């Protein structure tokens, strides 16, 4: 059948065009027996011993759709997989919803579906169910994606942003602020000599490696919008603790740091999409760091601070020159449509 090279309103109409689009462009790439049943709901057989179910959802409105280091497809899988992993869950299955703007080149959708396929394979998850809607021109800015995900939390794993304890070490798996800077440069057409790449990545494997070795992890949080400032403040507030971070220990690439300085952005509030902050008993920290460093997404892992007090939620930065200041919860929309 002659395919249009653009998505038309009719592709969302529930008729032949839509079914062809789903089968040929989407399902044929994300091949699995549950998806290919094309039933109204996916039926999952779950073992009784599977553990507690973790369930999450996220929508992706990133602009532009393609950026150095990733695209909306990779982001849509990684983001949802990571939300599950942050609770100590092993992600298993996701749903995939597209809201497509009329006129989106079919080739773009195909690229994005391939990216979803690759990222899902890397994260060891499959797409069980999905949906396609098409809206008129101007209604969706290219493409919006929603993914929901299910994972299972093994017995004995109790990871939550409410669990940080006095004395815990605070660890991050690598360089901050790359995603936000990459998006900003792409969007504003800024061409620095060194082009920053988004760190967008599914972290289920990294988290699995950590929890496989060290069960007593208290907290994990992925610092997405609002950067590590937001994530650290959430941990501080939810656990009611004070956290102290050492500015000179925070890993940041020179190029990203320079871009932040030039653009007047505080790297602590710039978005990440492949980072995890871990809080664990101090004695276990070196082991956590070593485990992270053996993994491709943890090579630059470092201890960046510690939980120093209980009862008063705040995050303090010890600056490189020996001073200190608050790291506040960032306010408002620093960079819209970052994820």
């Amino acid at each position: 059948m002659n395919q249009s090279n653009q998505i038309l309103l009719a592709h969302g109409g529930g008729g032949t065009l839509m079914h062809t689009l789903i089968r040929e462009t989407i399902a044929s790439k994300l091949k699995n027996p549950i998806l290919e049943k094309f039933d109204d709901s996916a039926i999952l057989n779950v073992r009784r011993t599977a553990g507690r179910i973790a369930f999450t959802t996220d929508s992706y409105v990133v602009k532009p759709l393609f950026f150095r280091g990733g695209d909306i497809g990779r982001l849509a899988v990684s983001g949802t997989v990571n939300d599950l992993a942050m609770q100590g869950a092993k992600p298993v299955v996701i749903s995939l919803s597209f809201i497509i703007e009329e006129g989106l080149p079919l080739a773009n959708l195909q690229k994005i579906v391939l990216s979803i396929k690759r990222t899902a394979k890397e994260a060891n998850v499959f797409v069980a169910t999905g949906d396609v809607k098409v809206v008129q021109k101007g209604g969706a800015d290219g493409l919006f994606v929603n993914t929901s995900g299910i994972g299972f939390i093994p017995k004995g794993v109790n990871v939550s942003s409410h669990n940080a304890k006095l004395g815990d070490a605070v660890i991050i798996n690598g360089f901050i602020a790359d995603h936000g800077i990459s998006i900003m440069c792409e969007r504003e057409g800024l061409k620095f000599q060194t082009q920053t790449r988004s760190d967008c990545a599914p972290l289920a494997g990294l988290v699995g490696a950590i929890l496989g070795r060290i069960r007593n992890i208290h907290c994990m949080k992925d610092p997405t919008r609002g950067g590590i400032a937001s994530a650290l403040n959430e941990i501080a507030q939810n656990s009611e603790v004070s956290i102290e971070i050492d500015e000179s220990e925070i890993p940041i690439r020179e190029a990203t740091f320079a871009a932040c300085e030039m653009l007047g952005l505080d790297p602590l509030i710039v978005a990440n999409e492949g980072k995890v902050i871990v809080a664990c008993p101090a004695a276990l920290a070196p082991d956590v760091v070593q485990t992270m460093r053996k993994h491709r997404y943890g090579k630059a892992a470092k201890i960046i601070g510690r939980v120093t007090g209980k009862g008063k939620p705040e995050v303090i930065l010890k600056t490189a020159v020996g001073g200190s200041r608050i790291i506040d919860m960032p306010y408002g929309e620093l960079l819209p449509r970052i994820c």
Partner: protein
Amino acid sequence: MRYLSEFRDGKLSKRVLEAISAKVRALPAGEIKIMEVCGTHTVAIFRSGLRALLPPQIVLLSGPGCPVCVTPTGYIDRAVELGRVPSVTVATFGDMVKVPGSRSNLERERARGADIRVVYSVTDAVKIAESSAPKKMVFLGVGFETTAPTIASAILEAQKKGLKNFYVLSAHKLIPPAMEALLSDKEVKIDAFLCPGHVSVIIGAKSYQSLSEKFKKPCVVSGFEPLDVLQSILMILTQISEGTSKSEIQYTRCVTRDGNIQAQRLMDRVFEVCDANWRGLGTIPRSGLRIREEFATFDASRQFEVNLPRERSDRHCLCGEVLRGIKTPPQCGLFTKVCTPESPVGPCMVSSEGTCSAYFKYGRKV
């Protein structure tokens, strides 16, 4: 030289701090009040936590060097009214959208459907004007001598391109007259100035020489890294101990005595000096820039007639005193209780370089 890491070096900072302490000990007892004029300095000092590292005799005062903070309410009201004209797009730098006017602000107007765009530079506004003609583009020209030359350049470019739909609403202000007004203010006590780094790139360190000599106050043009600020403070203390008062440059990697002559010429070509109203400081003679008659077709204040509401601002807001260095934000009754970045009452809380915003973000408990 790695400008970012070396100017934040912990060991070097310690040595400069020791030298500062030694100089302070050798001076007569009493506070040494240094005004850091520029909002970017206020933020830089907070971000590195310098205040607490300095000896207690050194008091750093924040000044009126935040262009958004000193923009009067009437200007915002005018921008709001312009935004309500259907054939007008208003383009502005980000901070301006949240500054409260008498009845509304640009952020709210945008949500109501006004075409208000945030741009990173005036060249973006010129591009929008070109591509969306005949829709009129009004750019909010708010800033000091750092931005004025780029706005001047944009007006000249618009003229060259024959654009009939590009306008600037100028609220540009000049720093040295404001410094002089502060020194003439009986309520204000300043012993020395940390002069703005980037304004000085344009106007040169020579611009502070006469006020330094007239009022006998040391002036040092400082960079923004922690070590820049520390070295500048040391240079100020050296002047005080030697009894000299002159304009010196610490930020030698960017600033010269004469400044950027071409930029100065550009400003002079398009703008003329006029009296200007500064929020909190009142009208300061010859402290603003107005578009010259020759470029009247680009002057939004001449080309648009708007009805302005009666000017109104919260009488409990102490932005005026904060901008003059007489009060600090914690001394304002509204600070953190009513006035916060989410719901700002005055512009000092809105601007990313505003003193109240800096105190709120970085200095609340430290």
